[in-house]
């Protein structure tokens, strides 16, 4: 029988190979995929998140864990989809137009993925239309905008307006972030949330999805 505790540990130590192997074995033995996620994978990632916030883990540990989690999830997702069960949430993320800073955005994306979200990363320098398209195509319920330049902060407003014009603003919640962005600015442009850190972004995303 598959040793499921090993899945938990493999994710925590960022060992993708083992994580995938254990998952495959478990699925072959018809373990309920939801159980795998709820009892082993999410707790592992939560523990990773906790260690990260306590400054026991750095980003490399975090990203390796997220990568392991993602590896397992790739095996599980088709089954969930087939059974009609949804992942926690579907997120479209990108750095706004004119801005090429993507490290912060990448970390947020990875942590969301690690947190069990289905993440569509549009990259950097993303025009408002591309956000609109991605939402339309993917049925996402969350949009994350990142900006690191003061001169691209206004693009966040423009993007939110484009969502309105395209009639998709109501379908999604919008989170914004990046070094120059503030809570006040987020309010002003009509975003639904702001966080100054990646773990904060995950917490916020969870709260929002839970409230949907």
């Amino acid at each position: 029988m598959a040793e499921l505790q090993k899945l938990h540990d493999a994710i925590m130590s960022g060992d993708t190979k083992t994580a995938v192997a254990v998952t495959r074995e478990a699925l072959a033995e018809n373990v309920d995929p939801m159980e795998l996620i709820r009892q082993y994978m999410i707790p592992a990632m939560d523990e990773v998140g906790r260690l990260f916030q306590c400054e026991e883990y750095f980003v490399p540990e975090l990203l390796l864990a997220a990568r392991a989690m993602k590896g397992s999830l790739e095996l599980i997702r088709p089954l969930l989809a087939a059974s009609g069960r949804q992942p926690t949430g579907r997120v479209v993320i990108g750095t706004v137009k004119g801005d090429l800073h993507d490290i912060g955005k990448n970390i947020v994306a990875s942590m969301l993925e690690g947190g069990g979200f289905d993440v569509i990363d549009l990259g950097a320098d993303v025009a408002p239309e591309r956000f609109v398209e991605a939402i339309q195509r993917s049925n996402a319920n969350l949009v994350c905008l990142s900006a690191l330049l003061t001169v691209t902060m206004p693009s966040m407003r423009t993007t939110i307006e484009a969502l309105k014009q395209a009639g998709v603003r109501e379908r999604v919640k919008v989170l914004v972030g990046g070094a120059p962005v503030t809570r006040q600015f987020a309010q002003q442009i009509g975003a639904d949330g702001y966080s100054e850190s990646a773990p904060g972004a995950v917490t916020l995303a969870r709260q929002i999805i839970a409230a949907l």
Partner: protein
Amino acid sequence: MEQRMRSYGALAISNPSDLVFGRAPSPVSCGFDLTIGAGQVYPEVNFTLPAITVSAENWSEIVTQYTEMVTGIIRRAVALRAPGIVLEFELLPAMTECPEWGAEVTALLHRALREAHEKHGLRCALRVTPTDIREHGKPPLLRYGQGCEQLLRSFDLCAQAGADILSIESIGGKEVHDQALLYGDVPGIVFALGILAPRDMAWLWDQITGICARHPGVVPGGDTACAFANTAMQLAHQRMLPEVLAAVVRAMCAVRSLVAFEHGAMGPSKDCAYEGPILKAITGCPISMEGRSATCAHFSPMGNVASAMCDLWSNESVQNIRLLSGSAPEAYTESLIYDCRLMNVAAQQGGALMLRDWLTASDQWLSPQAALLSPEATLEIAAVIVERKSHYERTLGAAQAALSILRGGLSGGAMLIPAKERQWMDRIEQELSGLPGDEKTLRRQVQERYAGIFDPASYGLCESA
């Protein structure tokens, strides 16, 4: 252009007591009657727009903003009788994509400085730093393509419009480095910093010195490992990466930033290049640094020690917003001027080394990044670099020297770092010692892992690979 190639096989400054703020063996004269590195430290003020889109509709507002900023900065310099000042104009991406815009602002700033010189006798110069917009593509194309053309044209037009010093924060190798850094992949980091980055730097700086040669009086300043070491520094600051990794990355970066000087740069190097002191020790050229008065732009564990060997002292960047006193650019100009006053008075009274040592001691062992910035650590790393030949070997050597300095601080009990960081030191050390002696082998080992992420042709790596 090849004739400009210099190679550094020995230190320009080998005695620690010659490595001090305000003095460089090869001073640079530029702008309006300003000589940098000849005894005085001058402020370098860098300023930027608040939240406003750079676009044709907003252009007149943008011109107003820059006019306001330069007026405030000069007003403060004159009021406080600054003996000299450098302004840095860092173009925003849209101003490099449309080189005319960047040139227009350059011209505006140049005029303001000329007027200040004529009216108040203010010695001054203008540094202009176009944005390295070559990174747009995936993978980025560095030697051809639209971004590259716009960038070179931007240098040209800005030189013509009145820039006195040209600089850049170039990004060759960054596409690989970003990912390697986030995954803590040491071989990937070395590949990016020791192989890719120097190749791009060599090519790019030949272009820049070529442009300067066509515009007499315009000085090729220097480059910075911002995209590498400052990213690592920021991540360490946010506790996302170990400080020791950020420190080792900084030391390695000196090798790639040195390539600018090998290909004609004369200094002052860029403010945000905390690898500057190493460059100064090797080349003898003046450097710009930033620290405790760059709190407008980033926080830092090395605010004081960063000034110990500087020739220009910068605020890195400040938005045009209002503080209770006046505009933020004006406020940070004042802070820089007071810092410089203190350094210059100490130097004048024969106390430069004493002040340098206090500045050093006040930060040195409180953080691994600061530990590498002492005059002794600087010379240790610089010496290893000049002893070795290839960029790859130099990069490895710099990393090892950095680790040995940190070990020294730890074993002497001077530096306290958490267990987690010490584990990372071991890990980095191990991985470094596992790296092959020759660059080709490393390329073969990591190339696959980063395939598609970088464009080999952009590094002249197609034929030889």
